[in-house]
């Protein structure tokens, strides 16, 4: 699905890039502003009562400066998988109620770096400078990997790069079903297309403009048929509205659709958020039940559900996954070693430990 874009704001120095021309052709009806006019428009958008609402249909084309290959920032006192991120822009055309981007950004438009060649060059430099170790990459620190891919074609370009580098894996994480451009690229087995999954209730009520769960699953099947591995991320898990039944149903459908051998990993994370998110989301969407559960400040200052309750939730979901695939490689995103031990029965004391655990999906 190609997300609708009404306005394109272009920085003066980003105008002459190939990607800029391609995007302008893809959206012939969009209002285009360049240079100072674009900056003024951006400033006006920021003053609107809900800047994000128009921002979701506005693309800002800029040159990405600074580090384009980054480490996942993780969070203090919890274990992080150490994924490296290819930073191609920020912002997302979808509008999930729980999205943390609402807090982190003060610029409402979706920003895309038009100098994708620089990202690829930085990536290749890194891969070639460390040929003896395994690297796990994903795209989009604050963006969906595939939402805008029908217009950028960045993922296809990356698949070809990773086809030539067996010492690395690429994970494309999405809530969209935009995988058609990736079909027919003969992936070499180190590419994982990962889908963010949830219960049907959460997906339908809180994931605005994301692909429906059925479509995500159909896309996962297509991806597997085209030679890709697929991952599934239950993140955020939100224990509302008969959640046990809801998540069980989603897990059953995953395993009814995809061969477990093609799933290198599944991750889980119960909803956690910085306190400001509740107020911002309430201002934008009104009161939503998911922000009114009993939360407590975790070790990193974010709101989390009581640890013993999280353990119960994780156990329930892991049990169902293991019912279908006892060998499934399940991991937690940003959890403590205590939760790892209690919910999974695994000793996981460090970021390196988790990184090795995930690398083992590709290193035998």
């Amino acid at each position, binding site marked *: 699905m190609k997300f609708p874009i009404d306005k394109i704001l272009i920085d003066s120095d980003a105008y002459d890039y190939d990607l800029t021309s391609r995007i302008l052709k893809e959206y012939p009806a969009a209002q285009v502003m360049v240079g100072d006019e674009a900056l003024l428009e951006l400033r006006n958008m920021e003053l609107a009562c809900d800047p994000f609402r128009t921002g979701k249909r506005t693309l800002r084309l800029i040159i990405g400066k600074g580090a384009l290959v980054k480490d996942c920032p993780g969070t203090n006192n919890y274990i992080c998988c150490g994924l490296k991120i290819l930073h191609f822009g920020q912002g997302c055309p979808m509008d999930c109620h729980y999205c943390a981007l609402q807090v982190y950004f003060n610029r409402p438009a979706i920003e895309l770096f038009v100098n994708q060649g620089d990202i690829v060059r930085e990536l290749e430099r890194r891969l070639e400078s460390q040929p003896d170790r395994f690297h796990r990459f994903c795209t989009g620190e604050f963006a969906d990997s595939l939402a805008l891919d029908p217009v950028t074609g960045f993922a296809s370009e990356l698949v070809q790069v990773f086809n030539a580098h067996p010492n690395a894996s690429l994970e494309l994480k999405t809530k969209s079903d935009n995988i058609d451009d990736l079909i027919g690229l003969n992936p070499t087995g180190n590419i994982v297309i990962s889908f963010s999954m949830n219960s049907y209730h959460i997906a339908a009520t809180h994931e605005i403009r994301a692909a429906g769960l059925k479509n995500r699953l159909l896309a996962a099947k297509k991806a597997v048929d085209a030679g890709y591995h697929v991952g599934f991320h239950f993140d955020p898990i939100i224990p509302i509205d008969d959640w046990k039944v809801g998540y069980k149903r989603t897990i059953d459908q995953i395993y009814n659709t995809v061969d477990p051998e093609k799933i290198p990993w599944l991750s889980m994370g119960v909803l956690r958020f910085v306190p400001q998110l509740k107020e911002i989301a*309430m201002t934008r969407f009104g009161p939503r039940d998911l922000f*009114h*559960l009993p939360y*407590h400040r975790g070790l990193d200052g974010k709101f989390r559900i*009581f640890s013993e309750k999280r353990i119960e939730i994780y156990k329930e979901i892991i049990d169902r996954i293991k019912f279908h695939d006892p060998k499934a490689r399940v991991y937690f995103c940003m959890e403590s070693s*205590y939760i790892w031990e209690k919910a999974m029965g695994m000793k996981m004391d460090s970021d390196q430990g988790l990184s090795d655990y995930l690398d083992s999906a590709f290193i035998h």
Partner: protein
Amino acid sequence: MVVDQSASEQDCYEACFWDNIGHRKLDASSRAQCLRRLMELFPRLDVIQRFLPFLGVPSQGPKIERLLRIGALCEEALSNLALGRIHERTAFAMSFRPKHEQQFLMRLINESGLNLNNASQVIEDLIDIATAREMEIENIIAEFDTKDISNPEVGRVYDGKELKKAVKRIKDPEFETTREGHEAWVKSLNLPRLVKITPANSFEDKSINMMVTFKSRDELELGLKEIKEIIPT
């Protein structure tokens, strides 16, 4: 100030604004009401560019919308906000509840004698419970056993401390049981006055911190020696 009879409401409000803003420090409640009125009378961009800097409100971010909602609260809530009896954050949370519930919450707080932080906490917890369970706030309170949240000896309709506890128990019973269990255990240890024991933040894991205050370096060294004997590493 002399006002021309033919002056519009807009002109009058603006004249009043400039007449007052230079020498008055507005509290959150007045600021919210003033902003709301300005937005009714002037275009949004005009308010942002001409008036906001003098109200001390940032032109970007959620603050404007938050104040606009607060400005529409019931009078009792606005008055409690002005008197510093509830936080601005709490007033904002209340703005999503119907007027009769706002009034009920204000009565509840005034009749329980809770301080600013505790009052705000109780209100926010009640709003969380009501929103998550789609209940009316009055019905949550009605579920309490009256004797559990009232205490004739404190001379108020509600015993604030007990009310706070009761609300917390409803909101997250498992967490409260753990917290109460921890407190009972610490009490059973009969700790010396200068020793404090605290769990991990929100019981995120089973680690326990012990803080000991020593009166001197000599005393600390003595204590350390004994600790090393118990925990050699």
